[in-house]
């Protein structure tokens, strides 16, 4: 009896495993011993029956649902349903709250800006360049080379043919006369201009914290974000400001020149204000007004995402409308911009298909698609393999069909890809291939 009980204690835990149809861990030997044991042990036999029939019943049991009972339960759930609908209205309230806050902030900013403008206008009226009257300055006429300006006819226009436009750095643009003799250099802290003769107008916008320093033989001009011009003729320097303010330092004097003002600096360092800054208007009209500083906007991730989608859509539209090269250029730009990411891989994929199927450069397309088929994310990898077959088909029908056949037989490709391959095979005319071979 003792042996029998011991046997039961060993067999009983295995009964559920014995009953189970899948994932049972019994070895054939254990299964056989359980089977033998069930033949003579009524307790285990009963337990086996209970387990077998009970689990089968549980599998096949159909549980009726009382609709009335469920309705009662649903009435208890109504508050939760209403609560979960409410957040949408609360969301609108939140939007209104934020919109109101933004409007209030915008109003404050406007009021502040207006107050500041009025205050600064009272403090420095010379900022209003348009109010500066234009005189034909005789001193300037004396020093400027003939042909550059025709003072006598009162035209007051610079001859742009004799001027050079330069943009040595992103933050500074220079309009220089052809007799400008000097050099422009930049460092991490400043942009330095040295010149000994000639005329130059400068537009300078900060330069990410860098200052512009203009060194002339008798004077140094320090600029932080402004527009000005300077000229040196016959040892006499002129500095005029069209916008903002500059500090001019010579050996004997230091003066701040405001917008619309022009100073003459003699060889001994003495400075003399000219009646009115006539040239300020000229410099502004001819050249410096063209300068529009690029504003850097911080874009949100969502904006970026939308922008990417729009660019993909635009590229597709271009291709569909027959502007293949423009579409290709856009795909290439997207590929470069998002290099190393899924978006970049997608752009490369589209570009490669265009190159192969539309422009006929089979080898280039194959190279690109092979690279994608090796390294791109999973879905693009699969699509690149399909596109490789398409490109091969464009080159040689049999190659394309063979490529598809290989793809269908390759277990690494998922079901959808293989289905697409099958559709392509059905669509393609394989008669030509069989005729040729």
């Amino acid at each position, binding site marked *: 009896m003792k042996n029998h009980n011991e046997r039961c204690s060993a067999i009983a835990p295995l009964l559920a495993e014995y009953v189970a149809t899948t994932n049972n861990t019994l070895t054939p030997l254990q299964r056989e011993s359980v089977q033998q044991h069930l033949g003579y042990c009524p307790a285990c036999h009963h337990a086996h029956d209970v387990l077998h029939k*009970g689990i089968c019943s549980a599998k096949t049991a159909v549980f009726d649902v009382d609709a009335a009972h469920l309705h009662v339960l649903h009435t208890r759930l109504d508050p939760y349903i209403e609560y979960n*609908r409410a957040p949408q209205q609360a969301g609108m309230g939140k939007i209104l709250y934020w919109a109101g806050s933004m409007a209030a902030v915008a109003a404050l900013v406007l009021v502040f800006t207006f107050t500041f403008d009025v205050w600064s206008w009272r403090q420095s009226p010379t900022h209003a360049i348009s109010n500066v009257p234009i005189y034909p300055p005789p001193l300037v006429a004396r020093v400027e080379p003939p042909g550059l300006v025709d003072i006598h006819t009162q035209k007051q226009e610079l001859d742009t043919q004799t001027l050079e436009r330069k943009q040595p750095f992103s933050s500074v643009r220079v309009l220089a006369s052809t007799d400008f003799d000097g050099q422009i250099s930049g460092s991490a802290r400043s942009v330095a201009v040295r010149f000994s003769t000639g005329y130059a107008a400068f537009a300078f916008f900060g330069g990410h914290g860098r200052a512009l320093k203009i060194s002339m033989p008798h004077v140094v001009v320090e600029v932080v974000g402004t527009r000005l011009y300077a000229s040196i003729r016959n040892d006499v320097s002129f500095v005029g400001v069209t916008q903002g303010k500059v500090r001019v330092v010579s050996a004997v004097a230091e003066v701040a020149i405001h917008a619309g003002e022009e100073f003459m600096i003699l060889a001994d360092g003495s400075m003399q204000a000219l009646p009115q800054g006539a040239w300020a208007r000229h410099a502004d009209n001819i050249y410096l007004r063209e300068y529009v500083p690029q504003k850097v906007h911080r874009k949100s991730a969502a904006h970026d995402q939308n922008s990417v989608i729009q660019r993909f859509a635009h590229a597709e539209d271009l291709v569909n409308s027959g502007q293949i090269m423009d579409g290709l250029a856009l795909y290439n730009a997207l590929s470069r911009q998002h290099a190393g990411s899924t978006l970049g891989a997608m752009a490369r*994929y*589209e570009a490669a298909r265009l190159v192969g199927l539309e422009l006929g450069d089979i080898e280039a397309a194959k190279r690109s698609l092979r690279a994608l088929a090796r390294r791109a994310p999973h879905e693009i990898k699969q699509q690149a393999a399909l596109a490789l077959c398409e490109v091969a088909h464009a080159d040689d029908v049999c190659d394309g069909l063979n490529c598809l056949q290989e793809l269908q037989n390759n277990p690494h490709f998922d079901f959808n890809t293989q289905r697409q391959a099958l559709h392509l095979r059905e669509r393609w005319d394989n008669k030509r291939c069989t005729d040729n071979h």
Partner: protein
Amino acid sequence: MSLWKRKVLTRSNRQTQIRTELDPADIVHKFAPTVYRHLKRIFGPQADVDDVYQTVFVEILRSLRAFKGEAHISTYIRRITWNVAYQEMRHNYRHKALTFLGDTEPHGSEHVDAEQRTDDHRNLHTVYAALAMLEPKQRTVVLMHDIEEHTLKEIAETLGRPNTTVASQLYAGRKQLSKLVHDKRCAREPFDHTATKHSKGKRGLS
């Protein structure tokens, strides 16, 4: 459709569309019978699942806004149902004195029709009563595998456990279930929680 459309456009549009289309009331009415039947299958025909049913829907409604549309809504609800059921099992296992009554009829069985008192019904009840005695982790795995016939991989994904853990829990659960049905020891004495707890070592989510 282009590859980029499939990958970028469709996903963002689909998520927006799903969020706007999911009406809480519709969800409740559409999936109520399914969830109720599912809970009955988990806890047994005699179990009172009304509270769990409500908890499931409260949880579904609460997490509806987090639904990203990556799986089908029915899969999402099924997963929530299993998680809530698991929490309920844990709660019962900790706080309620469980007794395995073996072949005897459950409490309130006088209302059950005479036709239902067949062997199958008794066996069914016995199995569910034994399952109720199992540790919640083992119970969920045995229920999902042997009764709902999910694969080990599916169970692992639903419960967020490694495949090997699920396999060992299935083995341990079957062993315990067999012992309970064979011995019917709890028909005579209250089930000793500590014995199971200590034999299984640490508790808590795997």
